[in-house]
């Protein structure tokens, strides 16, 4: 089994996230960058399949130089190798342009049986990459999986979203996106961290993928950001110690605000 796991390095949700004034894209320099938590779960799921029945697990990311940190983390968890698509031309890509890059990059890995992604990135929050890739590759997509089994050329998943639950089934090759409840990702072991340093990472530019600069990045995107504005910061209001009348005090406040 040949598995590709899509990972994304994102601004740490614990830090302040910003957009850059110049080209109105994500300001990746202003905050700490981490491997998105949901992608650790996607890696974990791939490793479970590998441990159960054997598989080669390839990590794939499209991102700038420092995305190598996220790649190393995924490799130290136990993935076998990685493909890093790194090209200035990709900067500022919209969701469709990103999907095109990832679809081409998956093609470089060989006969892929399964692609695993997160259901939603914490920065872009498109929540649709798996479906978009399925569309481009002509493969079924099984999304928001909170349980996954892959056997005999078939993937089965339990899907869970805010809208409800259902069972999914499709033949391989397929794209699967994982939900928050699918598993608890392992911590990289010391041995894993040492081993990761020697694992192969292939770096590709868009020319290697047969793409032209006009198809990706700000140039190739079909949406354009015109302007943005930070929201004025909200400051705290009154804070009072409960002296047995806390509930009544809130009620008074709400009456004052005409909320009750």
């Amino acid at each position: 089994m040949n598995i590709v796991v899509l990972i994304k390095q994102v601004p740490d949700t614990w830090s302040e996230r910003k957009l850059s004034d110049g080209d109105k894209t994500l300001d990746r320099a202003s905050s700490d960058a981490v491997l998105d938590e949901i992608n650790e779960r996607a890696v974990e799921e791939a490793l479970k399949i590998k441990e159960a029945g054997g598989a080669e697990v390839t990590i794939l990311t499209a991102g700038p130089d420092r995305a190598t940190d996220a790649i190393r983390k995924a490799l130290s968890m136990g993935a076998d190798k990685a493909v890093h698509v790194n090209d200035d031309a990709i900067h500022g890509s919209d969701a469709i342009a990103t999907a095109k890059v990832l679809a081409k990059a998956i093609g470089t890995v060989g006969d892929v049986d399964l692609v695993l992604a997160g259901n939603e990135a914490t920065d872009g929050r498109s929540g649709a990459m798996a479906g978009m890739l399925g569309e481009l590759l002509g493969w079924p997509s099984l999304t928001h999986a909170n349980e996954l089994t892959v056997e005999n050329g078939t993937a089965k998943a339990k899907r869970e979203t805010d809208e409800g639950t259902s069972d999914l089934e499709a033949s391989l090759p397929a794209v699967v996106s994982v939900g928050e409840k699918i598993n608890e990702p392992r911590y990289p072991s010391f041995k894993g961290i040492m081993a990761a340093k020697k694992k192969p990472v292939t770096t590709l530019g868009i020319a290697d993928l047969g793409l032209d600069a006009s198809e990706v990045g700000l140039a190739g995107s079909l949406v354009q950001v015109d302007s943005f504005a930070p929201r004025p910061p909200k400051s705290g209001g009154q804070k009072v110690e409960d002296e047995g009348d806390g509930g009544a005090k809130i009620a008074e406040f709400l009456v004052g605000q005409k909320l009750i």
Partner: protein
Amino acid sequence: MAEVLVLVDHVDGEIKKNTYEMLTAARRIGEPSAVVVGTPGTATKLAEGLAAHGAEKIYVAESDDTVNYLSTPQVDVLAALVERVSPPAVLIPAGADGREVAGRLAVRTNSGWLNDLVDIDGERAGTHSIFGGAFTVQSRATTDTAIVSWRSGSLEVEENAAAGTQETVEVPATDAAKSAKVSNRAPIVGGDRPELTEASVVVAGGRGVGSADNFNVVEGLADSLHAAVGASRAAVDSGYYPNQFQVGQTGKTVSPQLYIALGISGAIQHRAGMQTSKTIVAVNKDPEAPIFEIADFGIVGDLFSVAPQLTEEVGKRA
């Protein structure tokens, strides 16, 4: 006038309010056409509501396949209509299912995708609220058709009597090799409380609530205020309250008139889902809890004495 397509959000023969918001927004751009994708007989139940809220046309795409495959039937139907009527915009609900339909449709039709819009004007300039409301972003699609994912609860619904002329369209046969088969569908049906993203008051509980049973304190206050109930991820992870009520970065984004946080510390990821609420009230034992930094009114105290007292006070005034 150009037709603007709106994918109707429905469950169990009922239209979700989000659909009316989208019809209201669509009218600014052109003539709204509702698209109903569902099992045979669905559109009959929905037609009246759609016409009353501005749908000049209703495209009826009905087949049993629509519930047997994941998102492909919706994408197929909308892609055929985009081809046929060249709409300036297609509005689709921004829930998990809808975003998948939107992303795939954008790929299929090579159209720009404006994700999670809270507003759009007649010139198709969209407004997003990102990073939990920390930034407002204006964007537009550079393509003839813009695929729009619409965040529920962003707009006042307007009634607008329209023709609601029904036209049957085909649901193309689904290619089983390219689609996930769906079985055992169990939609979450809203209880008696208002829907979280649409409610004007939300009462949310965190790890401080301590157990699933104790959540009746949160529910009691919510019911006195006709509010929806929300929960922090810690409360959901601990099994106190179901997943679909999670508010925050990886849960729902809410922006009610009033948000009451009980036993929630106010981690940045929780704030990302509620800090645009108009008024925030917090109850927490810990005077240093970060939730107080954004609360308009905070009580440092035990939620188990404060919340029931507040419920009683609200009851007296009802």
